[in-house]
């Protein structure tokens, strides 16, 4: 179920707009936007390509790996896909949420393991569900002239999480290290009681509010009057679209991965289109007995890793690449972690559009992170409400809702899975691929994360 580790991840919304410069003059959309969104004096940053490992339900084929194994697979996949020389990048950045303590700088371990030059510095960032969004926006280093080529990615491995000894036990063990005499050691060992042996699980609840994310999502859905039926319908839509995308080969960012000691994996395994009747049978997972959020309309615990190659436009062209999209603008917002934990997209969307000088109508492709069906529906209702916009956002009118025919058309986190740290790169790569496939010009990525934060990115398709 989605509960366990979702909390550390709050909402971030990224809006990337990628404009297709060449088509600007042709498309009516562009006449409205009048520009390519390029900013004078700032380098254009492009997405060269993006890949991800198949996203698997945790506890399945990846069960015996470690997080850096998955990240390494994604990096190797990216090297293979782009034929990138192993010393051609200046920096590697990874996002992750639940850190394996042995590989706390998982970016470095994965990069070394993938055969990147040991001269390439790496760092790891964390910002809940939008950790890899942070990794990607760190590509601002390119605009600042620090680097020309960066690999950003994300990884999450929920099949194994650090479960610690209790604080009491840790204290005793640390004291034992410092004990000098046998007597001291024996007395310390003698002080161990049953209570010392209770393990400490990773936070199930938001630290500041002690509320689990599923619980919060259920309250959010109730606050916006989202019914169980609406949520189940949206969940079914996500699974159905994901299945179609998978079957028709649209999910080309997925690389095949030979898991050591196991089979070759080349498909996401959480996509399960079901029927409304079956979905209706499930009991609420968080608020019992009257809640509406169930295991089926929440994103599930997932293992997976992703990676993208980001360069300055000149460098990409010099190396002979044909970039997939421009990364244009982004914004992070955050709100009250208790009652507005998952409302990031509502707050972030108008902001990033304003920054980029676009309107909702200009956007051809929307990719929103689906933490919970109820959370998506609540955001859509909030964006459609004048009252909400006036009361809480200080706007005169509502934000407006993205049209569903442009929205998450290839499935989303509900169906594809949601490895917290890796989802951001998946969203961005998907937008680029959808812009190419659907012939659109601008795409918008939004994701909410724990702590009431959100990242938004605007992308512009590359001509």
């Amino acid at each position, binding site marked *: 179920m989605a509960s366990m580790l979702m909390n550390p991840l709050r909402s971030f919304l990224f809006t990337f707009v990628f404009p297709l410069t060449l088509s600007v003059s042709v498309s009516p959309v562009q006449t409205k936007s009048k520009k390519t969104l390029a900013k004078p004096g700032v380098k254009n940053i492009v997405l060269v390509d993006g890949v991800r490992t198949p996203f698997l339900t945790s506890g399945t084929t990846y069960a015996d790996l470690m997080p850096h194994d998955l990240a390494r697979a994604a990096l190797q996949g990216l090297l293979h896909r782009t034929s990138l020389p192993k010393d051609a990048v200046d920096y590697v950045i990874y996002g992750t949420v639940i850190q394996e303590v042995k590989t706390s700088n998982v970016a470095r371990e994965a990069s070394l393991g993938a055969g990147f030059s040991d001269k390439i510095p790496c760092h790891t960032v964390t910002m809940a569900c939008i950790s890899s969004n942070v990794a990607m926006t760190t590509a601002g280093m390119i605009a600042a002239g620090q680097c020309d080529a960066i690999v950003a990615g994300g990884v999450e491995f929920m099949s194994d999480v650090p479960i610690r000894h209790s604080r009491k036990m840790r204290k005793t063990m640390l004291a034992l290290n410092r004990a000098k005499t046998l007597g001291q050691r024996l007395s310390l060992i003698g002080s161990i009681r049953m209570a010392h042996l209770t393990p400490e699980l990773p936070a199930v609840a938001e630290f500041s509010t002690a509320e689990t994310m599923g619980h919060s999502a*259920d309250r959010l859905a109730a606050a916006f009057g989202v019914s169980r039926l609406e949520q189940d319908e949206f969940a079914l839509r996500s699974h159905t679209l994901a299945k179609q995308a998978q079957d028709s080969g649209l999910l080309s960012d997925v690389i095949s991965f030979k898991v050591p000691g196991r089979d070759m994996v080349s498909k996401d395994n959480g996509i399960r289109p079901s029927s409304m009747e079956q979905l209706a049978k499930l009991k609420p997972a968080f608020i019992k007995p009257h809640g509406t959020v169930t295991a089926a309309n929440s994103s599930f615990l997932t293992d997976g890793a992703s990676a993208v190659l980001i360069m300055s436009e000149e460098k990409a062209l010099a190396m002979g690449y044909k970039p997939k999209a421009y990364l244009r603008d982004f914004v992070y917002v955050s709100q009250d972690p208790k009652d507005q934990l998952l409302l990031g997209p509502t707050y972030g969307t108008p902001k990033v559009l304003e920054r980029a000088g676009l309107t909702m109508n200009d956007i051809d492709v929307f990719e929103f992170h689906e933490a919970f069906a109820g959370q998506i529906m609540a955001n859509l209702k909030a964006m459609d409400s004048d009252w909400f916009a006036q009361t809480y956002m200080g706007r005169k009118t509502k934000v407006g809702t993205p049209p569903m025919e442009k929205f998450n058309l290839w499935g989303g986190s509900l169906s594809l899975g949601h490895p917290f740290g890796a989802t951001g790169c998946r969203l961005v790569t998907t937008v680029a691929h959808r812009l190419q496939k659907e012939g659109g010009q601008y795409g918008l990525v939004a994701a909410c994360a724990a702590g009431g934060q959100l990242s938004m990115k605007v992308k512009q398709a590359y001509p």
Partner: protein
Amino acid sequence: MASLRALGALSRVTARRYNVMSGTLCVMYSHFSVRSFVNYEVKEDVAVIRMNDPNSKVNTLSVQMQTEMTEVFNEVLANNAVQSAVLISSKPGCFIAGADINMIQACKTAEEVTKLSQEGQKMFERIENSPKPIVAAINGSCLGGGLETNLGLISSTIYRVATKSKKTVLGTPEVMLGLLPGAGGTQRLPKMVGIPGAFDMMLTGKNIRADKAKKMGLVHQLVDPLGPGLKSPEERTIEYLEEVAIQCAKDIVNKKIALTRKKGLMQKAQDYVLGIEFVRQQIYKTVTGKVMKMSKGLYPAPLKIIETVKAGLEQGPDSGYLAEAQNFGKLAMTSESNALIGLYHGQVACKKNRFGVPERPVKNLAILGAGLMGAGIAQVTVDKGINTILKDTMVDGLSRGQQQVYKGFNDKTKKKTITSFERDSILSSLTGQLDYKGFEKVDMVIEAVFEDLNIKHKVIKEVEAVISPHCIFATNTSALPIKDIAAASKRPEKVIGMHYFSPVDKMQLLEIITTDKTSKDTTASAVAVGLKQGKVIIVVGDGPGFYTTRCLAPMLAEAVRVLQEGVDPKKLDALTTGFGFPVGAATLADEVGIDVAAHVAEDLGKAFGSRFGGGNVEVLKTMVEKGFKGRKSGKGCYVYTPGLKSKDVNPDLEDLLEKYKLAANPSVSSDSDVQFRLVSRFVNEAVMCLQEGILNGPVEGDIGAVFGLGFPPCLGGPFRFVDTFGADKLVEKMRRFEHVYGNQFTPCQLLLDHAKDSNKRFHK
């Protein structure tokens, strides 16, 4: 000064709007053509009954409310399209806050009140036997009659859904007004939550939060309060609660929800044990023993509650309900209930700002001195959205004070009333510092430095050099006249006294002292801050000892004389607590601090002369010299050992008292005489404060004495005591003491006026 520990039941009387009472159905059979209090609509096959008192912020069980409720219930029961019902309040934050106390007070005889109770019992019985399931949807306070409404609905037909909001509390606070839950509560509650749980609720009157109520079996299901959505959080939460309750009602009809809770093993075991008569007898005995120990038999209500519960359990429901109605009637006529209800009204009155809205609200506040008082004031301020500076002159003192504030909130975290995050976020508004940085932004300074006029003068000059012109200077002193402190100020209209009581976070009273020069806006601002801090406020005139300290000083002087006359401190404590004081006089002196007591006795002795005499001040001074400063120094009248609750009399004190021994006059030294010597001096001084215009009125006098000094709550305060006991009888006693001891017992003119004319009363 006056560091009283929590008083008895009364101190818990929070300002929350708990009215008491139970079903006061004087069911009037007059039909109102249009119902304005209770209405219902049928949603599918569920009748949603909404309560909304159009004239008040809260719902109370008034006559009209009950009449309309009965009508609506009858219609709902008769309506064939209705399978079940939901009972809900349209008011955010209040289900039913209880019944109107005035309804009981309007009754002249016990029989009338008994009749009220019986009408209530009958209505609830009818509802109890309703064939249609009823779901009570509770958001906000559900107290007294409100809870009984639910209890009445219990048994086979009621299902209770409550929000987890902090405002949602359930309870039976009647005992705090000297009454009992009189609409069937004493009979139904033991069945619901078990005998021990029911006694706990009814005898303490405590508020029970929703999650605890669920564990106890008082509610069946909890609903989370919602945040911002398409409507305001409050509005949408009520709507959501209604939706959930309607679903529950349907599920009960469809048999998806069983009304009987499955009993756990513990529950079954408890039921078995309590089925044995011998065990029940032991429980009654233990509970009665505890009540007697705590109340000294001065409060009749707890004993009547036990008696009533017992009647129902041992002799069957008929006797139980009859006993409840009769005892309810009897209690309503007692002077104790009258006194407690008077205090309740007084407390409500002292929670209002009669000086109007201040020109600018205090957003930034600085406290000088991080001692016990300073840190205590910081603790009650910083969580009210006020940026607080705590300034001391020494790092050690500052650090101790900051730790005290931290501990206050950390204890709340441990009790789970706030989260650790809330604690941290509250403490982020507190700045500890040694200098005057940032004082230019401060709206009010409260000084709590050492009680020495010269130091206070120095501080006021230093502060006035750095603060902005609008800033108010409040001084926390227990005895120094404010005008003397203000003498050093360039802007005396901005100077005011704010006398807090220790421990500040527990003691509810704040005594605000104004001088002739204090401006009205300064007073309004001080009262506004005090109210924010959750205090019950009396505003008094300036003078040595103001009101509270001035009343306490003669009583303590008398206590010293009693000790000098050879009465053991333990005996002295027993005599005072036996009169109804929550803390004995000797213990009180230790709590206040012997040094403070000596200081005050000397100061006030100088100001008022021999009238404040009695015990020899040298006794206190010698004690201070020997280091017996009270609890804080580990020795005073008693010896305090950390970790030990019991305390022994300080053996060195006996030698010391031997030196100052006075011969007791047997004609005024009986136990009762000693009690009246102590109390009459207190009361006489209080009446004199009213006579001299220090006090605004008897209500504030009663509230100040009870909440600040622990005057027996069952007596309702010095003024109500005079009314009840009789001024003439009190004067007669005082004349007898005056004959022996002189002018310390001379009754003041106002008291004599009341003694002469029995129609004169302080409280109407």
